[in-house]
């Protein structure tokens, strides 16, 4: 597939968002990353995607837990209760290593849980770990409308 993987990064701390972006760039992992800075903005972003614009739909969501307006746990619960959004894999990316956060988010059907590392070099490991599984061997759900859209798009070109 030549279409790059789309990632929605939900992260309120600009320094952390930069570290994530830089790690993917530095490791030459080809992704398109959109960033939203709070939980409500994440849900607005996802709900606003019209079916015809669903090539914008993220293939995977990286979700911080401590967020303004709406917490990561609330965002996760809403995504996983929504008939259309629930298929998008959500990987928690949080500084919290608390057992209750890990258990709580797996209970809410988080697809995976990763703790934020302390420095850029360790962020590379995070980017690679995500790449090795999610972008290289996992099959990610693409909505049927997305498929139709790109098929038509290609026919028109």
């Amino acid at each position, binding site marked *: 597939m030549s279409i790059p993987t789309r990632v929605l990064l939900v992260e309120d701390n600009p320094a952390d968002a930069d570290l994530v972006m830089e790690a993917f760039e530095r490791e030459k992992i080809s992704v398109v990353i959109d960033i939203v800075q709070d939980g409500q903005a994440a849900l607005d972003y996802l709900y606003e995607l019209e079916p015809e614009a669903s090539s914008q739909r993220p293939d995977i969501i990286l979700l911080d837990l401590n967020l303004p307006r709406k917490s990561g746990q609330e965002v996760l619960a809403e995504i996983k209760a929504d008939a259309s959004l*629930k298929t998008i*894999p959500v990987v928690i990316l949080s500084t919290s290593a608390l057992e209750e956060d890990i*258990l709580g988010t*797996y209970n809410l059907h988080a697809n995976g849980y*990763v703790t934020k590392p302390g420095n850029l070099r360790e962020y590379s490991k995070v980017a690679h770990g995500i790449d090795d599984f*999610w972008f290289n061997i996992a099959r990610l759900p693409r909505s049927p409308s997305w498929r139709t859209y790109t098929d038509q798009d290609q026919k028109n070109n």
Partner: protein
Amino acid sequence: MGQETRVLLVEDNPADVDLISEAFEREKVGINLNVVRDGQEAMDYLLGANKHTRPDLILLDLNLPRKDGRELLAELKEHPKLKIIPVVILTTSESEEDILVTYKLHANGYVTKPRNFSEYGKVIQGIDKFWFDLAKLPPQRNGNGPQIS
């Protein structure tokens, strides 16, 4: 953790079981692998598991005798205690419908079986790098795991 990660492989085809366990060995991914052959056996195993046998991750084939992978997945993800265990689908099916349906049933990930032995190495590496090296797997508690003192 200091303890080996426990993986439950739910797979009815002995040749695939061999390929997968050999790939884990060849890639030197140190895990404790248990194999069950159908969905019912998997459920029985999980319901009877204690802190020494409960898996940290389940690798689940879809087409299984007695209870198929989709049924088992649905049951697991509705079970109050078992739902937290990550389930990665490992199947020959490349059907878009199977991918969507299993993510809807809260599969944690979906991987298609490779066609030859050497490609199994890449699959096992990918699983290892994310799930065993990077991800925090759900801690076992309530008498089902090492207690925090």
